[in-house]
């Protein structure tokens, strides 16, 4: 039942990727033919020759509140009388109407993006789907000449951001890897994963707590419930608490975030149910302390010194408090297992705890503990993505050495 559901979601996902990729082929910019530059012969007049070929078109890859204005430089820009100082861009909602100044660019430039706000209340609101006419004014000292009024143009939003195509490809490739290996794993093929010391120590650490008759302290870190590190930690918690349920060892979980607390309660309760000991579950052992970093640490330190837990787990997002926790824990004589994806804190965990899961190892831990084929499958897919990244690294370095610019452009991402 579950599997079917996952499969369907997968199919839906792929379908949506394909759907979005359809937009790839759509060139949403209005292609407008640029006419021959019509050079106006100026006679005795002092003002510079006006810019020509003023074209306004919708700005690409935006939310529909901007127009892109281009023009051919005045004949006196840089050449001729060489007296153009700047161009002023003027806009009106009718060809004869009053033109207002929208922007100024220095001589030599022939493009201007007229952007406005999307809120109607904003003074600079730029209405979409409305005709606008543009004039470009070549300015010299105190005198100027205007171009002819452009054809009308409307601003509208786009359905696809062309600058983000590399990301789309990356998402597709990555998901494909993951889905393929999930399918392979589900077919029953045995997938190898290398041992991780931190994971293998989990059972031993729980066993030790049971022997000593002392509780286990599980810290989910300072992250909120939606952070990847915290979510990885929930999965590990679910395994750990199932073990503690079997061994009848109490598990204490002081939390730093109310939602994390709620989720932790739910996770542990379910684990106790699964272990067949729902009556041993104690909600009061999983509680909220405070959301402020150091106050939380002060509270947890107190617990460590007073309750003397046999084993401490620190898995999730940790900041400066990592060492405060780990040192106090080692002072209290607990076995400590830690893991985080905050690179700056890992050295302290490495120094002060017994086992540390470094970065990605923390995410992988759920697969190690669960050994479910789907989880192992994604781990394998992840490795393949890593291999691909490594190939790109080598090819990229070679391309950069031998100046293959086109290859480097492949990876350009517009943020």
């Amino acid at each position: 039942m579950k599997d079917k559901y996952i499969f369907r979601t997968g199919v839906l996902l792929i379908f949506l990727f394909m759907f979005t990729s359809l937009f790839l082929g759509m060139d949403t910019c209005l292609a407008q033919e640029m006419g021959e530059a019509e050079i106006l012969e100026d006679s005795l007049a002092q003002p510079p020759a006006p810019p020509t070929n003023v074209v306004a078109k919708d700005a690409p890859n935006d939310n529909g509140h901007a127009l892109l204005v281009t023009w051919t430089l005045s004949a006196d820009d840089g050449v001729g009388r060489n007296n153009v100082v700047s161009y002023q861009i003027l806009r009106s909602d009718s060809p004869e109407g009053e033109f207002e100044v929208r922007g100024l660019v220095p001589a030599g430039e022939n493009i201007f993006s007229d952007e406005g706000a999307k809120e109607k209340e904003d003074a600079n609101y730029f209405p979409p789907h409305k005709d606008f006419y543009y004039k470009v004014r070549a300015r010299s000292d105190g005198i100027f000449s205007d171009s002819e009024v452009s054809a009308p143009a409307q601003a509208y939003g786009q359905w696809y951001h062309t600058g983000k195509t590399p990301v789309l490809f990356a998402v597709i490739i990555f998901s494909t890897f993951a889905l393929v290996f999930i399918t392979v794993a589900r077919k029953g093929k045995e997938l190898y994963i290398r041992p991780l010391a931190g994971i293998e120590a989990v059972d031993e650490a729980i066993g030790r707590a049971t022997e000593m008759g002392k509780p286990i302290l599980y810290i989910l870190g300072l992250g909120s419930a939606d952070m990847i590190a915290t979510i990885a930690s929930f999965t590990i918690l679910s395994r750990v608490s199932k073990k503690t349920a079997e061994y009848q060892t109490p598990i204490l979980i002081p939390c730093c975030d109310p939602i994390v607390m709620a989720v932790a309660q739910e996770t542990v309760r379910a684990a106790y149910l699964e272990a067949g000991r729902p009556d041993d579950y104690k909600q009061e052992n999983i509680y909220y302390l405070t959301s402020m970093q150091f106050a939380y640490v002060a509270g947890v330190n107190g617990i460590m010194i007073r309750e003397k837990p046999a084993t401490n787990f620190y898995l999730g997002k940790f900041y400066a408090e990592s060492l405060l926790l780990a040192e106090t824990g080692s002072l209290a004589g607990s076995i400590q297992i830690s893991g985080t994806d905050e690179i700056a804190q890992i050295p302290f965990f490495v120094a002060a705890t017994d086992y540390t899961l470094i970065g990605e190892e923390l995410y992988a831990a759920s697969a190690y503990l669960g050994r479910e084929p789907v989880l192992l499958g994604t781990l394998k897919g992840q490795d393949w993505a890593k291999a691909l990244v490594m190939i790109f690294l080598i090819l990229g370095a070679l391309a950069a050495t031998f100046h293959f610019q086109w290859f480097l452009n492949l990876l350009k991402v517009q943020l």
Partner: protein
Amino acid sequence: MNFYERMMNLDRRWVYLVIGVVVVVTAIWTFRVPLYVTPEARSVYDFVESLTPGEVLMIGVDYDPSALAELHPMSYAITRQCFSKDVKLLLCCLHQNGPGMVEQVIAQVAEEYGKVNGVDYVYLGYKPYPSITILAMGQNFRIPFPEDYYGTPLDSLPMMRTITNYDNVRAIINISAGSATEYWINYANGRYNAKLAIGVTGVMTSDYYPFLQSGQIFGLIGGMKGASEYEYLAEKGGYISKEKDQLIASKSMPIQTTTHIVIILFIVIGNIGYFMTKGKK
């Protein structure tokens, strides 16, 4: 239990005591530490030095009281240098608990140099969501900050008349203890090409070093040592002086030096103990 074994099992409270005593003793009997000025701190100083009167420098101050010890000295030294050179300052704060502190710095230094708010400097105040704020400022400072910290509309401040966005400031110096720096680099420099230097806490220094190499930032002041290097240069330049008690970071550098030596000694002693007892087990 022989000497080495006892050394190995030393109660950690002795370690705490040694550190505490060293800090207090060095604070009372202080000395001057010879200083190696790193090129990345010097380049920030040299840049500010190259500014001419009337030019505008922007300072983004993003820290809260917990990083005060490391970053406040940088804020003070740079503002003092700027004001003595008649360089105008534009300041903003993107850290929730920081705005009051920034006000304190700028108000104090402005008074020292007789600078006028709105003419010689403008303090924009605080806005949440650093990424959005930094992006918006690239278009116009008035989008995130229609008014300054004191509630005056920007348009009515004389200094802001010629200032629209990053294009109108010579450079941005971001003094920060948090993730805002990343956004300054990615958006202010990456997207709007603003010239950027940063002053960060010691912890963050190694994270941001690579940006120096790639040229995204032109200078980096790292932690209390960086701050004291800057103060050293500023003192030599005659902008701040010891008599007026303006060397804040430099004052605690001797303590940094002694505590670092002590920690290195701890590591060495710990290892001697380890190797002397290893064979016996």
